[in-house]
């Protein structure tokens, strides 16, 4: 990660700390109205619903409480919600990640401030529905908030994952903006309900918030499923790796390195997804090769070598009939092709080899060199990179090695 990236994350975290302390101070000094307390209380279910997006970013319902707070109370409630909701979400889900919560708290707070500043610059008062400029004021505040949230998310993805801005907009960015806009609309509806019915309006506000949480449930379920699916593939890959000398997280790490390379090469997101799967499952064809051959310390004879060289073909054949994996099967088939045409199984050369296969080959080689093997200790990443460079143009694609060099600090 470069210096600018570090500065960016440090600023986010520092803002997060200030935001949380500020939130506590606000309550201690100014107290909180009943409505404010209700909105803050409802942040608990709203923040519990958290959907993680690919390649990076998240959607929760906390912004709905922020918008509702903007409309119904003074600025202290939305700021409080912005500062505290990531922590609450982490606590309620049972897997708190404090550092990330701080970054998110910082991001949310900056976004709320951006919205508020934009409105106060223009001078509309949106907190009195019916006033002139009410709609325009709220729209401005929302636009300010959403723009800032989007920018911060995109920069985070760029800094910590190497995802390009355009790539990010076409993937998670779209979902974030669309969801925030929808939540803003819902917040308008809720504020109307809450203010039109007096005390029982508060009751309705609570019911409606839970109703939205319930409506979002299927999406949460899906995103949880997606991670379970990926994990089960990782389990299969990990098990196949046991046939070799025990290499622990090789499959996952090789996949992550290949993804970093793909991002550095600015490949489109669907291609990156294929590479992620192929990087994970590249050795799955070894299921059909006896462990005695795989682990044999001496040179393999011709017959054994032929068997061993069939593993990319077997792997591709296993993956092809499976819906979600068939796209990635070609990458697995060719992940032992060399750039000069000396590889197997088809002897492809240069650009004939799928770009994914070239990335997986380099990722596999890097991870193999940087982990301990029974016959030698692990090399450092710098040493491994030197070796890769030496074989660039013969075994490896020079462009891919160059891309890896650019992100070598980010890879495991």
């Amino acid at each position, binding site marked *: 990660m470069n210096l600018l990236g570090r500065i960016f994350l440090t600023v986010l975290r520092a803002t997060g700390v200030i935001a949380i302390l500020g939130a506590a101070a606000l309550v201690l000094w100014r107290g909180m109205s009943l409505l404010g307390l209700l909105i803050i209380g409802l942040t608990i279910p709203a923040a519990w619903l958290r959907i993680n997006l690919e390649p990076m970013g998240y959607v929760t319902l906390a912004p709905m409480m922020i918008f509702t707070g903007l409309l119904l109370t003074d600025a202290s409630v939305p700021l409080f919600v912005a500062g505290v909701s990531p922590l609450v979400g982490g606590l309620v889900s049972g897997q708190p990640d404090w550092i990330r919560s701080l970054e998110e708290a910082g991001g949310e707070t900056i976004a709320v401030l951006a919205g508020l500043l934009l409105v106060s610059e223009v001078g509309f008062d949106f907190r009195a529905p019916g006033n002139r400029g009410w709609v325009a004021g709220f729209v401005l505040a929302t636009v300010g908030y959403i723009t800032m949230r989007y920018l911060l998310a995109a920069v985070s993805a760029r800094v910590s994952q190497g995802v390009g801005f355009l790539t990010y907009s076409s993937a998670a960015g779209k979902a974030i903006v669309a969801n925030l806009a929808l939540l803003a609309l819902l917040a308008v509806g809720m504020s109307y309900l809450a203010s039109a019915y007096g005390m029982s309006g508060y009751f309705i506000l609570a*019911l409606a918030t839970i*109703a939205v949480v319930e*409506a979002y449930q299927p999406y949460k*379920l899906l995103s949880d499923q997606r991670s379970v*699916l990926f994990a*089960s593939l990782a389990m*299969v890959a990990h098990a196949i790796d046991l046939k070799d000398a*025990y290499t622990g997280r090789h499959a996952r790490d090789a996949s992550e390195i290949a993804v970093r390379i793909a991002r550095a090469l600015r490949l489109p997101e669907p291609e990156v997804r294929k590479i992620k799967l192929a990087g994970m499952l590249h050795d799955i064809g070894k299921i059909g090769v006896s462990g005695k051959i795989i682990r044999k310390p001496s040179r393999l004879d011709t017959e054994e070598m032929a068997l061993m060289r069939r593993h990319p073909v077997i792997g591709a054949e296993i993956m092809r009939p499976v819906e979600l994996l068939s796209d990635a099967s070609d990458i697995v088939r060719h992940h032992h092709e060399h750039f000069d045409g000396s590889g197997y199984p088809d002897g492809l050369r240069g650009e004939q080899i799928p770009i994914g296969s070239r990335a997986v080959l380099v990722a596999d080689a890097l991870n193999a060199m940087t982990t301990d093997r029974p016959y030698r200790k692990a090399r450092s990443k710098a040493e491994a990179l030197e070796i890769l460079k030496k074989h660039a143009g013969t075994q490896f694609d020079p462009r891919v090695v160059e891309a890896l060099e650019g992100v070598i600090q980010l890879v495991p």
Partner: protein
Amino acid sequence: MERLPLGFQFYILAVIAVASGALWISPAAISWDRWPEMLMFTALITMAAMYPIPNPRGGYFTSTPMLFYVLLCVHNPQTALLVSSVGSSLGAVISRGWVPWRMIFTGAQWGLSVGLAAVMFHLSAGSLKDPGVLSLLVPLTLASFVMQVSNNLFVSGFHSWFRKTPFWGSWVVGVKDSLWSNFLSVPTAALLAMFFVSVHPLTLLLFIASFPAQRWATELYVQHRRIFGQAIESLVVAIDANFPQGKGHSRRVANMAVATARQLGLADSVVDGVEIGALVHDVGMIGLEELVESDDRDVAARLLEHVRIGAEVAGEIPRRDVVEIVLYHHENFDGTGYMGLRGSQIPVGARIVALAEAVESMIRAGLSSSEGNLDNAVIKQIRDGAGKLFDPRVVDALIEAARDDPALLRLSSDSPPPSARR
């Protein structure tokens, strides 16, 4: 149609008779003058019953409960009974095919559950006049609980005939399993009911907006579930291919473990974990094949390592129950196993798999010598081990399960896995 057991027929008829009887004694109470509303409710319930939503913890539920809650808020118990039973019957026919007795039974049991819940709602002074926590939310939550308890009573009665699960155990577990998802839909239902009376009955159609999302989620869930199954199956192939005990070992152990777990009355989500855990329990054996053949002195140490490595592999999926089975399937009940856990310190899934694996190897070893009375020999041997190697309760359950389905103790048990229903 297959012949149903006599007792089962009586049970079905009794439920249907009670439901019709409840309608019979008070036909005048049904508010026929509000027939358009009743028709709308029936149509919506039918639609909701057609789309079962997957429960992440195993099994399915539908979004009909939410409609039932609205229904019992805005109508009297008799009308709620009639409308909910007609709607669920139609939904059952459309989604699961035309089986007359099942259709009528489904309708009758939902009608009774909703009717009882409606009585609870009115008894606890639930009303939409001045909606608040005490006047609406609490009565509706109580009604939801009554509906859940009653519905699960009928369902577990139904299943105790088919799956031979103990009636009480599966009732309690069934209620516990879906309690929270039902409570979560209470606030939404309360909101819809308030709109229904204070704005317009047609606002209930807002509910339809959620159908496409539900359907989409269902399809994707089923797809993912299938791929997850394929991943596990390919893992089983890999384990079997690298394992001297050979093909079918993992599957046979899993079948035995699932039957035992069901016999113990464990919840569906637990049984699901037991099945996956049993299928992959020996995953750490991959790469140890020549080790097992050789008689190296530190074989024992390496075998001990296989459970640790296996648990690491299984740990890739976020299921603690599966990891625990892999890690602890070599524990003995009296604490003399690999890691020295004893009794209830060993997770129940691991106790089940340990026994199932032992029985499977006894059967394989015994097949060559005494064909004749293998079952008795096996049963005697595990009875002897009860309390020392195995959990006595688990031993009893397995013997009971094998009595119901003798094929469990056959090597040729290529019978489809018990989870094939999914």
